[in-house]
C-alpha cells in the first residue's frame, strides 16, 4: 500500500500549500494517475473548508465558560492555516468532528450555561481561533457528541410536535442504517478512499440533523 501511495503522508501539506515546488509538482504528477490520493485531497480540502466555516461561527459568549471548563488544558490551539496531519483512517472522524461545535452549542443551549456538554472536541474561541483536540480523539468525540445530543433530544422530545419527532427519529434511523452499511463495507476494505469519504459524509449528515433537531427543541 505504501508503494502505491507514496505521497499519502504529505497530502495535508499539499492541501495547505506547504510543499516545496519540486515536491508539489511530483505529487501533482502522482495525482494525475491516482484516484485514491485525489479523493483524499478532496476530503482534506473539505475538512479545511468546514473548519473555515466554523471560524465564523462564534458560540454565544455565555456558553464559552462551560466549554472552556470542559476542554481544560487538554485542548491545543491550531491557528487557521496550520497544517492538518490526518491520515486516511482518520478522515471519517475528522470530517464529522468539524461540526461537533455546533452540536455541542445546541446541547449547551438546552442544558443552560452552567452545564458543559460532554466532549466537544472542536470549538471556536471568542477570538475566532479554532481550538482542536488532536484528531485521534475524533471517533470517541463524535460518539460523545451524538450521545449527548441524543440524550438532550430524548429528555426534551415533549417540546416538539409528535409528528416532528416521528420524522426526526425515522430520518435518524435511516442515517444510522446508512452508517452501518458504510462501516460494514469499510471493514472489508479499510483503505478504500470512497468508503472512508462516504462514511465521513454520512456521519456529518447525522450530526447535522441532530444539531438541527436540538436547535428546534431549544427554539420551542
Amino acid at each position, binding site marked *: 500500500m505504501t508503494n502505491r501511495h507514496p505521497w499519502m503522508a504529505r497530502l495535508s501539506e499539499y492541501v495547505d500549500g506547504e510543499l516545496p515546488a519540486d515536491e508539489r509538482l511530483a505529487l501533482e504528477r502522482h495525482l494525475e494517475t491516482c*484516484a485514491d490520493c485525489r*479523493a483524499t485531497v478532496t476530503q482534506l480540502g473539505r475538512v479545511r473548508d468546514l473548519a473555515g466555516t466554523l471560524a465564523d461561527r462564534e458560540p454565544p459568549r455565555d456558553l464559552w465558560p462551560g466549554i472552556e471548563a470542559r476542554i481544560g488544558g487538554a485542548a491545543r490551539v491550531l491557528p487557521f492555516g496550520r497544517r492538518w496531519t490526518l491520515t486516511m483512517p482518520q478522515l471519517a472522524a475528522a470530517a464529522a468532528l468539524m461540526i461537533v461545535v455546533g452540536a455541542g452549542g445546541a446541547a449547551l443551549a438546552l442544558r443552560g450555561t452552567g452545564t458543559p456538554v460532554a466532549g466537544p472536541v472542536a470549538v471556536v474561541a471568542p477570538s475566532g481561533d479554532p481550538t482542536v483536540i488532536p484528531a485521534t480523539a475524533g471517533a470517541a468525540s463524535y460518539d460523545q457528541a451524538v450521545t449527548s445530543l441524543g440524550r438532550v433530544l430524548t429528555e426534551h422530545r415533549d417540546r416538539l410536535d409528535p409528528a416532528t419527532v416521528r420524522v426526526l427519529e425515522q*430520518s435518524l434511523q435511516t442515517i444510522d442504517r446508512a452508517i452501518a452499511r*458504510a462501516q460494514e463495507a469499510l471493514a472489508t476494505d479499510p483503505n478504500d478512499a470512497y468508503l472512508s469519504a*462516504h462514511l465521513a459524509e454520512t456521519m456529518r*449528515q447525522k450530526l447535522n440533523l441532530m444539531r438541527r433537531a436540538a436547535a428546534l427543541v431549544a427554539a420551542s
Partner: protein
Amino acid sequence: MMLTTATLAIAALAGLQQQQTDTTFAVAANARLRLSNHAGTVRVTGGDQATMRVRATHGSRDHIAITTRGTVIHIEAERDRGMPNFVEYEVTVPRGMAVELDGVETEMTVEGVGGDLSVASVEGGITVRGAGAAVDLNTVEGDISLEGGRGRISVSGVEGTVTVTGARGDLTVETVEGDITLDGVESTNVDLSTVDGDIVYRGTVQDGGRYRLTSHDGDIELGVATGLNATVSVATFDGSFEADPAFRVQISEVRPGRRFSFTLGTGSARVELETFDGEIRLRSR
C-alpha cells in the same frame, strides 16, 4: 395542504370565530419583512407598488402586530394569553424587498419576490416561484419547490422532495429522505446530497465549475449537453454506471465497484457522482 385543511377543521370544531385584518402602508425602499406564523399559511407576493398590504385571517382573540425596528418590519400574531391560533396570511410587498419567514406548522408560498429570501418551517412545505436573489429554504417535513433564485441558494429538508428549476448561482441542497431534482440550472458550484433518495441534475456544467451529487441509497442522474469540459469522478459500492454513447466516455482508471474517473473535453470542471447503492447515469440533453 393537508395540514391547512386539518387545522381549519379543528378550528371549526372548536367554534373559533375568524376575523379579518387588512391594512396597507408605505414602506421604505430598503425595508425588510420578517414574518413569524406558528401555524397556518403564509403567502407573500411581490408587487409593483412601494407599499405593503397585509391581509390575515385569524381568531377573534388574536390580533396582528406590525412593528418596525430599524429597516425591519415585523409581523406576528399576538394574544393576551396563550399562543395565537391558526393564521392565514396574504402579504403583498414591493418586488425587490428582502423577505424572511418562519413558522412551525406552516405552509409557505412566495411568488415574484426579487429580494433576498429566507423561509423556514418545521411541518410544512415551501413553494417559491420567481425568486430573484439569494434564497435560503429550510423545513423538516414537507416538500420544497423553488423556481428561480440568483446568487447563493441553500435548500435544506429532512423528509420530502426538493425541486429546483431555473436557478442561477451557487447551489447547496441537502435532505435525508427525499429525492432532489434540479432542472434548467446554471451554476458553477453545485452540491447536492441525500441519504435515501434519487438525485437528478439537468443543467449546465461550466468550465472551472464544481459539481457534487451524492446519495447513499438512490440513483444519480446527470443530464447535460455533450461537449462539456469536465473531469468526472464516479464512485459506488454496490451500484452501476452508464453513459449515453454520445459522450464517448473512455474510463481512464477503474477500481471495480468503487471509484473511477474519466475526462471529457479539457476536463476543466470537476464533477463527482457518488452513490453507495444505486445507478449513476450520464445523460445527454
